């Protein structure tokens, strides 16, 4: 394979972590909704933790994007 095509392939492969991040975010959202559904008064306490874990998980997808962009343009 030529170097250019390998580069494109590697950039695409670098985005594979999105699979896990999507799964993780889905789990975070589902458990948050379930917890608040069962006990609506817990929303205040859970909100902060929810946003923190959401941002930490979402950051992993962005890391993957940065790696992909580095492969493409770096």
């Amino acid at each position, binding site marked *: 394979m030529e170097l250019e095509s390998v580069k494109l392939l590697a950039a695409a492969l670098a985005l594979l972590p999105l699979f896990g991040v999507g799964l993780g975010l889905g789990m975070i959202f589902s458990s948050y909704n379930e917890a608040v559904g069962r006990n609506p008064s817990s929303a205040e306490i859970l909100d902060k933790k929810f*946003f*923190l874990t*959401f*941002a*930490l998980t*979402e*950051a992993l997808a*962005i*890391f993957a*994007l*940065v790696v992909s962009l580095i492969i493409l*343009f770096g």
Partner: protein
Amino acid sequence: MADPLKQFEIKPIIPFELAGVDISFTNSALWMGIAVITSILFMMIATRKTTMVPGRIQVIAESMYEFIASMVRDNIGSKGREYFPLIFTIFMIVLMGNMLGMIPYSFTFTSHIAVTLGLALAMFIFITILGFVKHGTHFLSLFCPAGLPWALKPLIIPIEVLSYLIRPITLSVRLFANMMAGHLILKVFAGFSVAMGVTLGILPMFFNVALIGFEFLIAFLQAYVFTILSCIYLKDAIELH
């Protein structure tokens, strides 16, 4: 059509060179200055005429103060009160950087790793020195959890040291990458709008409107995450664990 990466270009406004080192006044420095001046002016105006029943601006300033104060209280405890000004400053500068970047044609200085790594390294070095000053060599027990079987020590201690040393990198890359990726996506979709013409181009524009709302959420959330992680790292140095 302009390159979506062009928005992150650093352009010198006042070129200046000292002993072979380029220290020009750039657009990044300009927006950093604007962020500092806006946050100081905002707090000064908000607290100029304080009343028992707060007005609009005073409510914003008070809720910001209370937001960070409760974060410090929850994460560090009563010992963290003396570090409140530091945490509040970090929060304000990161928040202002993210929010000012949302103004069209402005420059997001937090989308550069040089800036965020500087902030994160400053925090990291401060926290490490603070830990050694407060606990002396006992600070090194941070890397060796209590009750660890001796057989596991050669495995766990390097992992703990590595996870401690990687903190400033993850902290800075998280902020910079989030801001960069968000602004990149905005510009890419704006580019779709231009490429698809007037009639069909309206669809990516609607998507862009939703994305801008999401970007505002991310801008606040990343400032919050940067601050709360600084708090958690500070707590490690103050209380060990």
